[in-house]
């Protein structure tokens, strides 16, 4: 990775919630450093509460780190950068009082896109995610999968170089999740965007990512980075190959100890759901 090939430079980022000695004090992230290359899809995976979502919010300028810096290009992140970074959140972050089309156009207005361009750009990105026929529906009238497609369209219409996705398919059922993952791989292969994708799912991580960063249990830091050397867009058959299985097993081994440690600290026994396949 050469210096001008780096899209996001994370340097010694630590974050704590509350003050030391406080009852609510939590050391979420500890001394995390990582370079994210231009155009790569990086997955962050780790046990619950390891700080991967916190790191995503720090990259996006929504949370200020306790110490350390994140650089985008040559600027240090100090607040949201709507021209550079778009988000897709896990929860349903569409405004329920607006139609899908209005939601996308509102995002464009917030970003500062001239009025005349908003309609065409919104329609184009909604068509790209397959929602052309549902533009005038309200979010409440759509299924969970369609809502996340709409949220993705809103983020894509902003035409940022960086896309941050916080477990965007986390609340969806397995089948919907698989289809959305396949579509996302096709959609993003062409875009050349730099994508950081937080997930709980090992399979999702291997299927989508160029690299997977595995987090340790709290206080979280990056334990290992696994490269997935497979061209985009990935074919659905990729999941049945030995390569896929080997990589997933490798991730499983890396994660398993951390999930045990995280669970022991939280005083619970891990459940099958903590290690999603």
């Amino acid at each position, binding site marked *: 990775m050469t210096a001008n090939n780096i899209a996001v430079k994370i340097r010694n980022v630590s974050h704590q919630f509350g003050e030391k000695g406080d009852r609510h004090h939590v050391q979420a992230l500890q001394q995390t450093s990582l370079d994210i290359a231009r155009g790569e899809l990086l997955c962050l995976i780790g046990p619950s509460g390891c700080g991967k979502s916190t790191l995503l919010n720090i990259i996006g300028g929504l949370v200020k780190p306790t110490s350390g810096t994140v650089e985008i290009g040559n600027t240090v992140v100090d607040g949201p950068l709507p021209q550079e970074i778009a988000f897709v959140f896990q*929860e349903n972050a569409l405004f329920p009082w607006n139609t899908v089309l209005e939601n996308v156009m509102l995002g464009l207005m917030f970003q500062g896109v001239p009025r005349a361009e908003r309609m065409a750009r919104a329609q184009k990105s909604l068509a790209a995610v397959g929602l052309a026929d549902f533009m005038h529906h309200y979010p409440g009238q759509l299924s969970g999968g369609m809502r996340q497609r709409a949220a993705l369209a809103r983020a894509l219409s902003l035409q940022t170089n960086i896309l941050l996705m916080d477990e965007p398919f986390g609340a969806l059922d397995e089948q919907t999740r698989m289809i959305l993952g396949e579509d996302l791989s096709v959609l993003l292969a062409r875009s050349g965007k730099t994508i950081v994708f937080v997930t709980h799912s090992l399979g999702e991580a291997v299927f989508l990512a160029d690299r997977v960063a595995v987090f340790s249990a709290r206080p979280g830091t990056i334990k290992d980075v696994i490269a997935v050397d497979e061209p985009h867009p990935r074919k659905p058959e990729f999941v049945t190959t030995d390569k896929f299985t080997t990589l997933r097993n490798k991730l499983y081994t890396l994660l398993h100890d951390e999930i045990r440690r995280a669970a022991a600290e939280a005083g619970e026994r891990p459940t099958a759901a903590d290690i999603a396949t």
Partner: protein
Amino acid sequence: MNDRGSRRDRLLSRLVQAAFVIGLLALWYLATTRWGVSHLLLPNPLLVWREFVDVLSSGEFLPDLAVTLGELAIAFLISSFSGVTVGYLISRSQYLIRVFEPLLAGIYSIPIILFLPLYVLLLGLGPASKIALGGTISFFPIVLSTIAGFGYVERIYITAARSMGATYYQLFRYVLLPAALPVILSGLRMGFTVALLSILGSETLASLAGLGHRIVHLAESMDMARMFAYIVFAVAIAALLNTVVSALEARGKRR
């Protein structure tokens, strides 16, 4: 079929409602003509109807109605403006919400009508004391619903808008306001209703003019049929205003 069934159900309940009202009127009529209930307590409904028509056609009700509606309008204007403003300012800080929401809810639960004698002492028997009372009583549901509306907007909407670069004005206009509006509108409707009730009520207790004042005046001069006609008139006005306000609320909430 289901649709037809539900329409028949609706029609049936309308019929029962109509039969209930007609039955009440019949009882009233029988009580005055057959069962010898004193006309000083309960005048003949036909007589009341004649008086009601006379009140309407003579236009005698106009000055009193103007006083009551004027008091209501000013009281509601004051309480809705101050309630929404104060509620919004409180809702901007979790600390202020924690301090003031229980305090205001506590005051709301005491009978503020007890302040009427104080208001009359301070402001006299004229409209000012009614406006003050109506304004005070309706302030509370409005301020509380405004706090609830603005103070509990889902954080994710605010985070999403911020991440896309929304300015403070845009955040208010396109996120906070539409999120809070349905709750605030409910509060405004409740405020309007309690303002009307308390103004009519306080007019019957201590006043110089207004519909409530007229009703007490007629009762004191034993003109029972006309008093009942005015009660019917006041009920009709209240029902009409509440229907209008509810329709406005429903329109504001529709999206």
